[in-house]
């Protein structure tokens, strides 16, 4: 079975049919994706799915990585933090390292590519290469740059302005100071992945037993890094407030890397505060991570992601996909995903989280309704086939710029007649 067709059970045969129709207008187009690494990180995970899907629908998609040095990756890590709004000291020498490494990688660009897609800041410095390049260049930003450090943004935006278009996850991440079209394309999850596929009863039983989670009691789950921005202590406080009303288990499944001192610090503090509370189960670095998180999400009565700051929040998407009622922090991409009161609840405080938890636990009909609506929202907007469709539309929109609706017919792309009233 063709790759895209494997998603028909999730998005419907009609959607697959329509996406294939759309792709016909790009059949044979050479699309080169460029990022910094093929392993590790969200971008690599996305491209691992997107590139084969593009090929599956007839687009000649390739994936290239630039070769960096430790000094280069130090700079780009600083860029990443600075683009998120942190104050970073980046010297002129480091900026030169960035430029030099990108210049040394000019040859990775496919001269015959119809589209060159640069992902995130690392390869931005390749764009001067387009001087003798006939293709269309698009920048895909996977992070929140709304509060970017001014100096770093000034440095990088001189590259970004040379692109034909940019893509952001949310409207809030677009920039007033970019004179190029800015598309909004949210990220997606893969319903066939280990993190999101159906799990068997045996798998559920096995992993819940491994972590001593009773199967005959409800539990609330937050699966997130041990990071203050995920507000683990707010979750603890919400659980404490809830316990005035009823006893419910809290399961916190979190990751931290051994070389992440802040993660360790947050974990240690969390463990001190969770104390010997028999109703709190902490699972550091679940193994295997994706499957365990999948099992935990599917069996949770409520999934909570009480972030204080969040780029998009794919853990929210995952919980929604599993038809769980989700309580999310009222921030970033979580606000975009959760339609408050319909597909979950948005909260600003531990008190709000405790209130909504109590409400949902007391009302199974409400829980079911929220979960069903949440799953439908994901199916319609945040699955990988939607992502592919959006990308195909972006490529066509940049190739055929300007306002107006386009008709894709066998003999090409044309303005669609009779649409003028819609445009006025």
């Amino acid at each position, binding site marked *: 079975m063709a790759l895209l067709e494997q998603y028909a059970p999730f998005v419907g045969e009609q959607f697959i049919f329509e996406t294939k129709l759309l792709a016909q207008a790009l059949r044979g187009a050479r699309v080169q994706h460029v990022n910094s690494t093929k392993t590790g990180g969200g971008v690599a995970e996305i491209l691992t799915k997107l590139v084969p899907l593009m090929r599956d629908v007839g687009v000649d998609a390739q994936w290239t990585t630039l070769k960096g040095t430790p000094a280069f990756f130090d700079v780009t890590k600083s860029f990443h933090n600075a683009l998120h709004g942190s104050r970073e000291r980046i010297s002129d020498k480091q900026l030169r390292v960035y430029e030099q490494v990108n210049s040394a990688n000019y040859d990775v660009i496919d001269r015959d590519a119809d589209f060159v897609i640069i992902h995130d800041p690392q390869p931005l410095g390749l764009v001067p290469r387009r001087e003798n390049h006939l293709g269309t260049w698009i920048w895909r930003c996977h992070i929140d740059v709304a509060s970017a450090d001014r100096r770093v943004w000034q440095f990088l935006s001189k590259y970004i302005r040379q692109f034909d278009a940019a893509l952001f996850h949310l409207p809030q991440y677009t920039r007033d100071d970019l004179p190029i079209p800015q598309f909004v394309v949210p990220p997606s999850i893969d319903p066939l992945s280990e993190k999101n596929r159906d799990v068997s009863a045996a798998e559920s039983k096995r992993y819940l037993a491994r972590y001593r989670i009773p199967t005959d009691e409800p539990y609330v789950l937050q699966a997130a890094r041990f990071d203050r921005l995920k507000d683990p202590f707010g979750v603890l406080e919400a659980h404490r407030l809830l316990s005035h009303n009823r006893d419910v288990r809290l399961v916190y499944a979190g990751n931290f890397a051994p070389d992440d001192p802040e993660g360790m610090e947050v974990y240690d503090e969390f463990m001190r505060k969770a104390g010997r509370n028999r109703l709190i189960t902490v699972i550091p670095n679940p193994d295997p991570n994706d499957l365990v998180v999948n099992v935990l999400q599917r069996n949770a009565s409520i999934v909570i992601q009480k972030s204080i700051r969040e780029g998009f929040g794919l853990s929210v998407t995952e919980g929604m996909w599993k038809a769980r009622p989700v309580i999310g922090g009222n921030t970033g991409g979580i606000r975009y995903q959760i339609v408050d009161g319909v597909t979950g609840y948005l909260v600003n405080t531990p008190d709000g989280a405790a209130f909504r938890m109590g409400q949902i636990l007391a009302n199974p009909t409400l829980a079911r309704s929220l979960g069903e609506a949440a799953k439908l929202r994901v199916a319609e907007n945040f699955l990988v086939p939607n992502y592919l469709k959006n990308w195909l539309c972006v490529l066509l929109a940049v190739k055929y710029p300007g306002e107006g609706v386009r008709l894709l017919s066998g003999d090409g792309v044309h303005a*669609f007649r009779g649409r003028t009233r819609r445009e006025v």
Partner: protein
Amino acid sequence: MRRKRFLRRREFEFHTELAVAVWSGYKADSIETLLGGLNEVPGSSIFYHVWHALFRRHRHTPEAWMNDFARWALHGLGRKTLAEKLACVDMVLLRTRSVAETREHLIKAVREYQGEGEFPGRVAMGDELYFMEMRSFVMPTGIRAGTTGEFVRGLQRLGRNTMLHHFIEGRMRDGGGLDDFSRWFIETGRKDIARQIEVINPLSADLDHLRKRIIEIVRRAG
């Protein structure tokens, strides 16, 4: 029962439509900037936030049946009165023949509200309304119908995006106010079917239910 047959004069060609959102460059953080945006943004932005919004979103609750501007007035600005005035635009949509008319209704609603003397401030950063536009691509599906049977079979194979294109957006095409299905049945001598489809309120159910309802109408009419 006498079978009604009609000549294969003009086949109905089913199309579908896919789109992606692009930022128009405008955003609103107050009543004034909302009004400014409503005046300035391209028509496809008005279309996206009113018409497309109604059929893009969840249909399970009354909250879903509200255009983006009304929702923002309610949840962003916290202004219930303004939200009601803007939501009422959805009620006149069925008679609206063009985006220009929709835009006029929206602007009028905001001006009336301003005239009532409430002057809320700006929303917090992150709560702005971003005016998005659509870049749409219409595609022939290759599915055609020359008879009612073919029409039923065709519509059964197709989905929401086809309904959005023909049943919702079709009303604005050529200014006639008729959806594409009704227009075709009239042109092919089946006013009996057209009359039944025409009176379906597009806001009464989601697009999948509307599709099934239309299929049932055509099937019963024979």
